[in-house]
Every structure is written in structure tokens, then in C-alpha cells.
């Protein structure tokens, strides 16, 4: 870990004239694109606390919920790009919600680093006896009423795509937050549900089973189950990654210093943040950052634009 900062410093030396490591001149406003009490909020507040302890920067977290992070992003855009207003949201805030949006565009922001990624799964209760998506489809075709728990438009559309692909009827049950879908499933209000990562311990305990992965790759907990892409249901995954952004024009120096500090927290398995991420979003923290992150988001954006065109 100690090696990491010198590397960044060396990169900075290569990039420009020699200077001291970037440091904030005052408090950092750390905006959270989701409501208080949820998974994003827990992660963000732990990160803010540990970053503050690690670097001695004063960090003040604040929730700005709405529009899947887009409400926060629209305000973040207008802040000074001095590294003292940062926003934590998810990739779709920038590479999906920006499509056709007059308020925000992908170029309005400097992308600092990812922190974690989802394990998006199609779930059922173990006592349903279903082992695969086909089992569920067959049950539906023989008259079982499918109630599919979700928490938002994007995943509900995903459930619709599964229904259309297999020619079955699906009833949607909308809840607030990722955990609500799991609760509905367990409480038998629904018999299928989306899970973004919270399902981990329940799957491990054998209470729930994963029928399919909605990530581009199979899930850590069910490496044998196919992805919805493999099954031909959809062309892109429904998964998401958490990421930290700042207004556009943030200096590379500041961007890389902040990213390095966050990586230091994430790489230490003893930190609250790393523990939370490993438990909720296995296998563990994601640390794509800087230009690589920006390039990935831009690639996603192009793919998403294609998707939107297809749908229209």
C-alpha cells in the first residue's frame, strides 16, 4: 500500500512540473446521490469517515437523493471543480440517465474512481423448487402466477424483457430500495425478485437461489448459472457500479490524489468500507479509475444509446 502513493507521485512528476501532493483547502462536501439509510448511503458514510481519518481532510457527507443519482449530478455540475465537492452515484447516473437529458451530459464531470459493483441476479425462494430460469418459465406456463419484485424502472423493464422473451405473463411489485425486493420475496409477496447484491447471505444460507445472472458475467455465488445475455434475453447487463465524480475540469493531480486515497481505504481489508463492500458486493472493491474509468463510461454510453434507439 505504501508503494502506491510514490507511484502516483512519480506519475505526477512525469505529467507536469514538480509540485506537492494536492490537498483540499477547506472542507470537502461529499454528496451522496441516494437517500439516507440505504446501501449506497452506508458505503458512502463509511468511506467518508475512513478517508477523513486517513488523510485528515474534513469531509461532510450529505444526501441528495432522486432520479437514481441524477438530481445530485445536476447540482454537482455547477460546483467549482476544486475537488471539494464530490458526488457518489452509480455508472448509470452518467452513462444512461444522461441520454436525452438537457441538464447533465457525460462531459460535465470528472470521473475519479469506482468503488464497488453489483451482483445483479434473478432470484427465487429455494422452496419454489426452481433450479433455473426454465423451471420458472415452465411453472408460469402451467399456471403459476409470477409476481416479480423490483425497485425501479430499469429493472422492471428487465423483467418485462424476460417475460417477452419467454412469452409469459409477469406481474410487477415495486418497492423502495434494493432490500425491499428481497424482503418481498422472502415474505412470499413475490415469487421472483431482482437482487443487486444484498441477497448474498440469503443465497449462502440456502434460503434463496440464483436463477440467472444479469451481469455481463456469471455471478460469484452461482458461477454455473447463465447470464441473461447468454440466454439471448438482453444485449447488456442490468448491473451497476458505484463511482465517485467531481465537476468537469478537476485537475489530474487532485483527481489522482483523491482516487489514491480511496484505493488505500478500499485495499485495506480491515476497513469498514472494504468489509461492507466485500459482504454486499462480492468479490470485493472495484478500483477502475481516472482515464480508464472515463473511457469505460463513454463506451457504455454508446452502447446504451444503441439500446435506446432499438427500443424506440
Amino acid at each position: 500500500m505504501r508503494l502506491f502513493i510514490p507511484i502516483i507521485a512519480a506519475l505526477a512528476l512525469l505529467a507536469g512540473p514538480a509540485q506537492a501532493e494536492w490537498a483540499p483547502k477547506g472542507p470537502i462536501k461529499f454528496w451522496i446521490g441516494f437517500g439516507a439509510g440505504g446501501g449506497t448511503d452506508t458505503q458512502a458514510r463509511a468511506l467518508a469517515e475512513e478517508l477523513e481519518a486517513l488523510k485528515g481532510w474534513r469531509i461532510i457527507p450529505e444526501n441528495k437523493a432522486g432520479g437514481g443519482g441524477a438530481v445530485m449530478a445536476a447540482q454537482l455540475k455547477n460546483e467549482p471543480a476544486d475537488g471539494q465537492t464530490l458526488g457518489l452515484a452509480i455508472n448509470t447516473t452518467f452513462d444512461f440517465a444522461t441520454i436525452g437529458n438537457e441538464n447533465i451530459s457525460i462531459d460535465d464531470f470528472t470521473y475519479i474512481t469506482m468503488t464497488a459493483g453489483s451482483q445483479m441476479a434473478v432470484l427465487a425462494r429455494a422452496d419454489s423448487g426452481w433450479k433455473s430460469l426454465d423451471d420458472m418459465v415452465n411453472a408460469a406456463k402451467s399456471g403459476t402466477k409470477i409476481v416479480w419484485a423490483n425497485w425501479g424502472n430499469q429493472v422492471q423493464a428487465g423483467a418485462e424483457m424476460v417475460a417477452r422473451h419467454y412469452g409469459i405473463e409477469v406481474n410487477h411489485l415495486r418497492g423502495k430500495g434494493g432490500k425491499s425486493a428481497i424482503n418481498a420475496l422472502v415474505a412470499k409477496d413475490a415469487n421472483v425478485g431482482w437482487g443487486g447484491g444484498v441477497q448474498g447471505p440469503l443465497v449462502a444460507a440456502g434460503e434463496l437461489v440464483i436463477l440467472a445472472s444479469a451481469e455481463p458475467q456469471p455471478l460469484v455465488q452461482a458461477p454455473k448459472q447463465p447470464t441473461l445475455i447468454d440466454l439471448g434475453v438482453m444485449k447488456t447487463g442490468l448491473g451497476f457500479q458505484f463511482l465517485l465524480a467531481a465537476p468537469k475540469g478537476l485537475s489530474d493531480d487532485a483527481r489522482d490524489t483523491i482516487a489514491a486515497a480511496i484505493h488505500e481505504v478500499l485495499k485495506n481489508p480491515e476497513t469498514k468500507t472494504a468489509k461492507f463492500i466485500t459482504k454486499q458486493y462480492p468479490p470485493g472493491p472495484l478500483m477502475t479509475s481516472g482515464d480508464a474509468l472515463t473511457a469505460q463510461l463513454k463506451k457504455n454510453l454508446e452502447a446504451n444509446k444503441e439500446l435506446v434507439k432499438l427500443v424506440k
Partner: protein
Amino acid sequence: MDTPKATTSKAPDPWDIGFGVLVLAGSLLAIFVWFPADIKGGFFNTTPLGRIEPGDAFFPILLAATLGFLSALQVAISLIKGSPSPSPGSLGKLTPHNIRFLIIFLSICATGLLIMFVLGPTVVWVMRELGLTDAEYRYLTDTAPYKYIGYVVGGFLMTVTLIAWTEGRVRPAGIIAVLSVLVVAIVVFDVLLTNVLLPPNAEF
């Protein structure tokens, strides 16, 4: 409470009719000007799978139309049957006294809040011009005494002025009460609660 029971309905009251007309105009304005400009989704939406669903404008338009209908109904009833008499103890309108009160009251509040908002940054700007500091207010929003200047001075002036205005004089009791509330607020919102900023510091 034991005001004599008001007489039964009388001629249409201008405040009663005025309220209805205003709401009617407002709801029409909402449907034809505000919503088209400020709601991106349509009355109906087509889902990715081709199903037609109510869109973002569906419920607002429904409500505004209901509002327009109700206000038209209210105006019509009042014109035909006369306005309902106000409940005991109420006049059912804003008197010139009420309006005068509102103007003074809101001016005091607005002035106090304006001072609260601009005083800190202004002090820092003056200090920078004088060469006493090279920082900007944005970087001092968590530094005493700068973070307290606007809140304490603006809040004090606003509250003490309101008390003095209602009492017709300035009493030490009022000033002491306001100062102690400011101290308590700073202790609660700034010292005990570390992740909260006092007004106006979240703004910069």
C-alpha cells in the same frame, strides 16, 4: 370562541369569488403553459415493450383539471347562492392590516436572511481586498469564526427586530433569549452534530 353565530349566507364576497377565479386561472395556466414547458414525459408513455401507460404528465393534468372544475364550481355556487359565511372568529379575507403586517414581517425576515447569506463571504472578500487573508469563503465554511458570522448576526438581527416590533420596545429579556437560543443552536448543530453545517455554509 363565543362569538355570536354568524348570519347566514349573504351576497357574493369578493374574496370568496376572487379565490376561485385565481385558482381557476392558475389551473388553466398550469395545464396550458407550465406543464407543457416543465414536464418532459407525456400524458401517456409507451413502454419499451409497446404498452401504453400513464406518463409523467398524466396525474398533474388530471389534478389541475380537477382543480379547475372545482374552482369553477365554487365560483358558480357562490354567485348563485351567495358566499358562505366565515366561521366564527374569522373574517374570511385579508384586511389591509393583514397585508401591512405581511409586508413588514416578510421584509424583516428577508433582510435577516439576506444578511445571514452574504455577511460571511463579504467579510472574507473585504479581508482579502485588504490583504488580510488569501482564502475564499468556500474554504472557510468550517472554520470559526467565519462560519458563525452570517448565522449569528443575521439570525440575531431578524429575531430581535421581530420581538422588538411585536413588543413595541427592546427588552433585555428578548435579547438574552435570542442569544441563548443562538448559542444552543450552535452547540447542537455545529458542535454536537459534526456532519451538519449551519446556514449559509452548505451553500458555498
